[in-house]
């Protein structure tokens, strides 16, 4: 069997698996009756619907011709991994290091994902963004975010 559309094949598979997983998970909750639907009623039905839709997309991907096989294309691993890491590091660092240290760290990390990287630009960005965020979020909007590292109390 040949895959006629790469994108549809993988999205169909995704819908099928996720729908199935939700339906399977919903079996843990009471289904109830139509007259008195329980917490499992709606998610179970939806899960089945999604799995069926996924099956249809998959079927189409295997039968209908598409232009040039509709390839998924190269995955931009570099920005994907770097941006993901930058967000996670932000989440880990903010409660411990505070805004003042976390923001430059995040800007530096995120900038690595770009095509061009210049130390001077990163320095400008992180200074502007840190001061700007402090003024906007802490002074302006009075959000209660940790500003300084906890180690300085």
């Amino acid at each position: 069997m040949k895959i006629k559309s790469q994108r549809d094949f993988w999205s169909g598979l995704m819908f099928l698996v996720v729908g199935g997983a939700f339906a399977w998970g919903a079996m843990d909750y009471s289904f109830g009756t139509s007259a008195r639907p329980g917490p499992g009623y709606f998610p179970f039905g939806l899960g089945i619907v999604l799995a069926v839709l996924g099956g249809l997309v998959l079927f189409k991907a295997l039968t209908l011709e598409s232009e040039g096989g509709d390839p998924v294309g190269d995955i931009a691993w570099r920005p994907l991994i770097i941006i993901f890491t930058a967000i996670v590091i932000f989440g880990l660092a903010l409660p411990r290091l505070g805004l003042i240290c976390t923001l430059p760290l995040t800007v530096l990390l995120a900038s690595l994902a770009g095509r061009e990287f210049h130390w001077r630009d990163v320095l400008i960005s992180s200074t502007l963004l840190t001061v700007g965020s402090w003024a906007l979020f802490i002074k302006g909007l009075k959000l209660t975010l940790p500003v300084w590292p906890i180690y300085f109390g």
Partner: protein
Amino acid sequence: MDLLNNLALGFQTALTLQNLAYAFFGTVLGTLIGVLPGLGPVATIAMLLPSIYALDATPALIMLAGIYYGAQYGGSTTAILINVPGESSSVVTAIDGYQMARRGRAGAALAAAGLGSFFAGCVGTIIIAAFAPPLTELAFKFGSAEYFSLMVLGLVGAVVLASGSLLKAIAMIVLGLLLGQINTDVITGTSRFSFDIPELTDGIGFVVIAMGVFGFGEIIANLGQPAEQREVFTKEVKGLWPTREDFKDAWPSVLRGTALGSILGVLPGGGALLASFAAYTLEKKINRNPRVPFGKGAIQGVAGPESANNAGAQTSFIPMLTLGIPPNPVMALMVGAMTIKGIQPGPQVMTSNPELFWGLIASMWIGNLMLIVLNLPLIGIWIKLLTVPYRFLFPAIVVFCCVGTYSLNNNNFDVFLTAGFAVVGYIFYKLGCEPAPLLLGFILGPMMEENLRRALLLARGDWSTFLTRPLSAGLLIAAALMIVVVMLPSIKSKRQEAFQDEA
């Protein structure tokens, strides 16, 4: 005259110094993000949601609304000047607008877009004021079955009018509905799909999904693409005022665009995007022999779609304000903002919060006036912004999104969840799955479930209740008709044609 009294109340509210300031801030910010490619109103409003905790409901909503229609103005500026639509609804503006700019007529194109949008915005505001009260009356007659059917119609509309594969769009809605099921069941108190993680029992915040998928997902997608060459017509923007011929050519298009946009904006899932595509097609059909051919810089091709997208942006507030049902992701965020401020969206808003309701409407007119001032004389400032390289832009978006998600609950769990959705968003992009229907499904999911279960409970488990109640049946028939119409071969090819440029 109720209408006049209501509008008077609205203007009283909107004209306070504080509300004017927020309307101004919203429109400036909207223009800014409209001008900057790669940052849309959905991500921006999502970023700003945490900040509205500090505001009253009325200024908060006025500001968010300003961002939305401001983005429609700003998006057309980049479409005309650099052939990069800042917003998806400006895609068709780029076709003729950019050609006008290349012929040194950027000023006339910008003026046609700006004045057309202003006219459309004014009409849109009047339409909201006139039609909201009767629609609200109707909404009070709605029971659970009707609400459920209405949401089905809304979701079907969202798919039918979206671009790309119909089947995948429906699947994305269902996926959104399912993600909305990760919560604590309202009726029995059972926590569902939480894997014993306490943060998940409250459900995933829609800001988390919006920022992950729309904010971060787009950044990753943008960075993965090869650098583009931009040609900016900065020096040639002079002679802002259009000629007499321009006016003569453009005003019928403005009228037609406004009418079309106002109607399409009310439809669920439609809003500004569909309106601009439809208006362009209409202008091409009507103007058989334009002074300048379409695609070569016809002013009708700028004036029509631009009026239509602004009118559509205005009237898409109608279903949100009267029924509490968001027709597009931006309105879904507005519903979220109302909920944050403790206002239950729905028909009762007009009576329980009249200042908010009419103040918001009046502020839209004021905002449109501000926009015309912001955009025409100050165009030079916005053009300068276009020269800001993306390498400065995206770290800023990352930082604001991160701070935004953290401050939702002052908790880093949401930040980690957003990181996950960033990856999911990139997968959607790669697989050609539109994320907008997912967000709509996610917002409507819990409401739909509640209404479905309540309707079934009242009907003692009889599913036919949705078809025997006339209003509900009518809505479901409309939804079915929409699907049938889209499946017709002739419409199907037209639809693909209309959305071709967008892909």
